[in-house]
């Protein structure tokens, strides 16, 4: 390993004792066998309950779970922009919708297999996002937020009404892959998609592109000084976010079987996904997936709950109540708990990986720290 520094002896003060990395506290922690068993149990138990539930004839709401997976992917896409890179998109209905209509077009008009539809949606999603990214290099902050808002509206009002692309009001057909046409089977497709996106997202932040994005979010000067091409990685972030959104759109389309322009509006898609991202926790992939699930299951089971306690207005307007509740949660999150649901999921994740259970952990999130203050 490294040689220690030679210190000129005339320096006077003796050098302080050196800690080496291998002596660092915390490195040596190993869970006991019982600890590992508990961790394995914590992973396997919900998995088995899930499998049992889906396989049983219990009233499985596979379609709802598939929706949760799609929302999770869409929210992870926003997380790349808002969470990792510090950019914003208020027009994500365009991102998702373009993926959906592209996939539908490829499958039903070009008669290509479902998988081709997903891949083309991914690529087209990335390209349209990069175009938006090129604007982000020139227009910043609030003005760029307005540009994304406009982009969403343009897609909603013009692009998605192009008959040749979206088949207008009749809607574009997006059949499911053969062998996966039932809700339960299609849920598996969506879960595989979500798992792949989660893997990619994990590697993204564990390697140089993710680190570059996070550095340029904090301070473009520091990032450039570290050798990061700030413009290049801003565009890369848009490409990755667009690719995730393309996949979400493709899965969305085939879940619905037909998609229409009305499916992609600001409130239903862009705002919802943004709220899910914030409440789940910026940069907290586990929290985002968890809140996607809570959001959808909340909508599914709230009417039952309301009926049980006899509140009729909630029973019939459950969707609105969930949206309103989420919006309030988002505001509370931003004020009090910037890590959102990640406050809980992140420590659980670290525990599962064999660390001690510990709620607080370094590393800040939105609102904390405030970034490097290096001015050039």
């Amino acid at each position, binding site marked *: 390993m490294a040689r220690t520094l030679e210190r000129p002896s005339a320096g006077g003060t003796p050098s302080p004792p050196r800690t080496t990395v291998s002596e660092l506290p915390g490195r040596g922690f190993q869970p006991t066998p019982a600890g590992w068993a508990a961790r394995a149990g914590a992973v396997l138990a919900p998995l088995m309950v899930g499998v049992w539930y889906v396989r049983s004839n219990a009233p499985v709401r596979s379609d709802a779970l598939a929706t949760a997976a799609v929302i999770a992917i869409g929210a992870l896409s926003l997380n790349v922009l808002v969470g990792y890179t510090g950019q914003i998109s208020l027009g994500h209905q365009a991102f998702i919708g373009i993926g959906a209509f592209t996939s539908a077009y490829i499958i039903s008009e070009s008669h290509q297999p479902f998988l081709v539809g997903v891949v083309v949606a991914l690529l087209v999603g990335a390209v349209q996002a990069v175009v938006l990214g090129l604007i982000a290099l020139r227009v910043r902050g609030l003005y760029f937020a307005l540009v994304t808002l406009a982009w969403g509206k343009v897609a909603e009002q013009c692009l998605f009404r192009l008959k040749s692309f979206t088949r207008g009001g009749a809607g574009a057909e997006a059949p499911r892959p053969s062998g996966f046409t039932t809700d339960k089977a299609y849920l598996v497709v969506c879960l595989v998609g979500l798992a792949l996106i989660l893997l990619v997202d994990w590697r993204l932040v564990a390697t140089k*592109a993710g680190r570059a994005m996070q550095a340029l979010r904090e301070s473009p000067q520091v990032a450039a000084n570290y050798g990061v091409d700030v413009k290049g990685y801003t565009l890369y972030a848009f490409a990755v976010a667009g690719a995730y959104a393309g996949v979400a759109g493709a899965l969305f389309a085939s879940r619905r079987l037909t998609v229409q322009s009305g499916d992609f509006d600001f409130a239903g898609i862009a705002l919802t996904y943004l709220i899910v991202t914030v409440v789940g926790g910026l940069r907290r992939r586990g929290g985002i997936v968890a809140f996607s699930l809570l959001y959808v299951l909340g909508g599914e089971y709230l009417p039952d709950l309301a009926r049980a306690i006899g509140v009729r207005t909630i029973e019939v307007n459950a969707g609105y109540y969930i949206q309103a509740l989420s919006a309030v949660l988002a505001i509370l999150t931003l004020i009090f708990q910037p890590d959102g649901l990640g406050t809980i999921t992140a420590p659980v994740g670290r525990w599962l990986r064999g660390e001690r259970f510990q709620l607080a952990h370094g590393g800040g999130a939105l609102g904390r720290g405030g970034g490097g203050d290096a001015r050039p």
Partner: protein
Amino acid sequence: MPVLDGADRRAPAPGPDGDGARRPTAVPVLRADDVSIRFGGLQALTDVSVRVEEFEIVGLIGPNGAGKTTIFNCITGFYRPQRGRILFKGEDVSDLPPHERSALGMGRTFQNVGLVKTETVIDNMLTAQHAAVEYGAVAGTLGSPPTFGAERRLRRQGEAILELLGLARLRDDPVAGLPYGTLKRVEIATALATDPDLLLLDEPGSGMGPEEADRLGDELLALRREFDLTIVMIEHHVPLVVRVCDYVYVLNFGQLLTEGLPGEVQRHPEVVAAYLGDEAPEAEEAAERALEERGVEA
């Protein structure tokens, strides 16, 4: 990265020779030629020329607002001077953006600390190695197998530099919350992680007491040897400058006031007047002692 492999290294041959002149080489590591820049009505730099030879430690001093940080920004590409050129290792880099100059081997610290504050120290060390990463961005994102080993090597390299600077125990600490003097040292570690040939330090000793500044001086001399570095430093601790620098430039009101060996510059009447001001006698004494100490070491 070639650093820390335990290989034998040529001892640097910096500094003045016997008669006090500088040994010029054909291709200096850094040359700034007649750099001028103005901000609105303010002429921040006027025809400033600086030359830095290989393995030298060059000091840049001058009162606040003299334009020291501004010339660093021109050298590293954060500012584009209206006139003048920057040559790095013989190559004209005047038109390159900062990240390309960093990748070519310019490492730099900022006067007010340039670190990613929400990240941990080790994550900063990883990010700082960006230009040296062996794999492409897409390969990393898609989890291609070689990237796992490459990441382990980056981490080891980062840890080795931290260890070398005695910062290993801060490895997993978030940057936000570390004391200012420590941040300055962590920033030197990240600058080293960019694998620089030329290290530009903007007031590395600020926030440090005299003893710490003294230790910093030893450390810079040792780092130059260990990493084959050429160093330019902006510094207000005159004793530190006198002890470690081979050559000194003095800026005042955006112009070079004088340049020369530390001992000469320090006695220059205009420097005493412009830079040391009221504290002149005291500071001069301290510098004098530093110079003597240096003589003992040599």
